[in-house]
């Protein structure tokens, strides 16, 4: 299921939030510099525990 996930562009450093699921079929690009090197931030353990 898609979740709001923080992405970081490894080209320009821009950070933004977008819906993301590991199996989604979306070509991602940084909204600022359009680079495809955008990395989803993994949920921290504390966040996972909070959701449970």
């Amino acid at each position: 299921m898609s979740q709001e996930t923080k992405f970081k562009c490894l080209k320009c450093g821009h950070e933004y939030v977008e819906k993301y699921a590991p199996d989604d079929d979306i070509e991602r690009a940084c909204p600022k510099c359009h680079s495809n090197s955008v990395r989803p931030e993994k949920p921290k353990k504390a966040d996972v525990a909070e959701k449970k």
Partner: protein
Amino acid sequence: MAYSEVEEVDGYVGNFKVKVRKKARYVREEDCNSCAECAEVCPVVVPDEFQMGLSSRKAVYLPFPQAVPASYIIDMEACLGTNPIACGKCEEACEKVCIDYDMKDEIFELEVGVVVVATGMDVYDPTELDEYCYTRYDNVITSMEFERLICAGGATEGHFVRPSDRDVPQRIAFIQCVGSRNNAGDKGNRYCSNICCMNTVKDTLLLRDHYPDCECTVFYVDIRAFGKGFEDLYMRSREEGVKYIRGLPGEIRQDPETKNLFLTAENTLTGEVREYEFDAVVLSVGVIPRRDSALVKKLLSLSTTGDGFYMEAHPKLKPVDTPTRGVYICGCSESPKDVKDSVTQASAAAARAMTILNAGHVTVEAITAAIDPALCTGCGLCAKVCPFNAVEVDKEKKTAWVVSAMCMGCGNCGATCNQGAVTMGHFTDDQYYAQIDALLDEDAADKVFTFACNWCSYAGADNAGISRIQYPASPRLVRTMCSARVTEDFVLYAFVKGAPVVLVSGCHFADCHYIDANRQTVKRVYRLWDKLEKLGIRPERLQLEWISAAEGQKFARVMRGLEEMRQQVTAEEVEHTKKVLAEEWEKKLAREAKRKKKAEADESRDEVQVS
């Protein structure tokens, strides 16, 4: 085989096994002579789908006048019931004794060499576009409904009447691009449906022919009349008195008494905003991929464009081939097109199919994967990632093998295998390591190491070159068939050899020549970023870009950006990376050597047992 559905497709080019369900008609088609006596006595009346619900049919019916075979069908969902028989009037009326309530679906298994997909398209449903009030006002109809009304074999035998009062309308508006070319909102589609402009031009001429006094007005964005003779037809329509207003109406309202429709629109050529009154409005609806296209996509391992239409193997050189060898596409399953283009493409698909059938053999490029049974553990990871289902796994014997005729050589399996059991023909791991060695042996710190996929990124680099676009001299390209061939080890090895920056580049998602193999590239790069970060290496030094063959400008822009990035990587950083990864690399080599030794020992033991 009419009234049938393909349920399963197995096998590969030259050896497809297709399972087809022939649905029960409950009328013996070989005996039925379409006398219609059964329909005359049938008491059940339901809307006729072929007439877009504008007239009715019976539960036993002929789907449409030109149906082949010309045999009636019983719609069992509408029929009063046969168990026990609650009606049976059709059976009593049929002199030729064609009715068979006990008829069952039949399953046929066919062996075919090639498959041609000509599944057509569906029509856009404008219900979601609130501004056009399609379901609210009776006199707002779609172009398909108009077609059935103006057709001599249609619901009104060719008399165009308003649905609200069955009067012949005198003022008719056509609204173009309904559900097409919508870039702004989330409703409709972005693409042009290709056929609607000329369909409307034809419809206006038909109307003027049937009703010379009627007034036709077309609201349009652009009239796209680019085919042979199309511009002449468009000009003829204008000469016949059809008004063309550039601009789409923002809203439609109805007079509750007369049921006339009022359209507010801006003529974007004059800037005039005004309200127009019409007796009927025809929405020129676009086309969409068939609603069951995902099923066919799965059956035949096809890929689709972002619009949902099936994607060809190459837009110029293989326009009717698909990524799956032996499967061809044509007509609106590939993209919206008119009859002429569909026939042309169908002829091309048939000719392509015949080249295989007549040859009697298939030539496969020698770049397919091969699995070493001695190293394979039968884990099945390779089979999971293969976009063409070309890998078969025997879990009991703990081994897997590749069906060469199905393999297209993307190398995804090779990059996924943890055991080093997969060898890609002409793109072996050793060859890649040798290329990395050769490119980074001297002055590695001055180079941007790039993996570029054969079809898009490498061609994008070519495009930049032949277009004489300037970009730095630092990039060093290694060609892979697909970006999914790039293993994590290739990237790490490039860093071990001192690459300051590594780029993995491939086709855009919609352009992937191996269906969806490049989705694995993304997953692999994500894992690599995590790994690099864990080892204290800046993940930014590994970049990912999708560059198409036409994007020479993008290639150059990316390279300029990477050159800037390269200059920021310090010598100490590179040395640290080399040191950290060299330790990892040694461990990996030791693991591989141990695994190979074990495999050799197992093999020799098996040989002893056999002897």
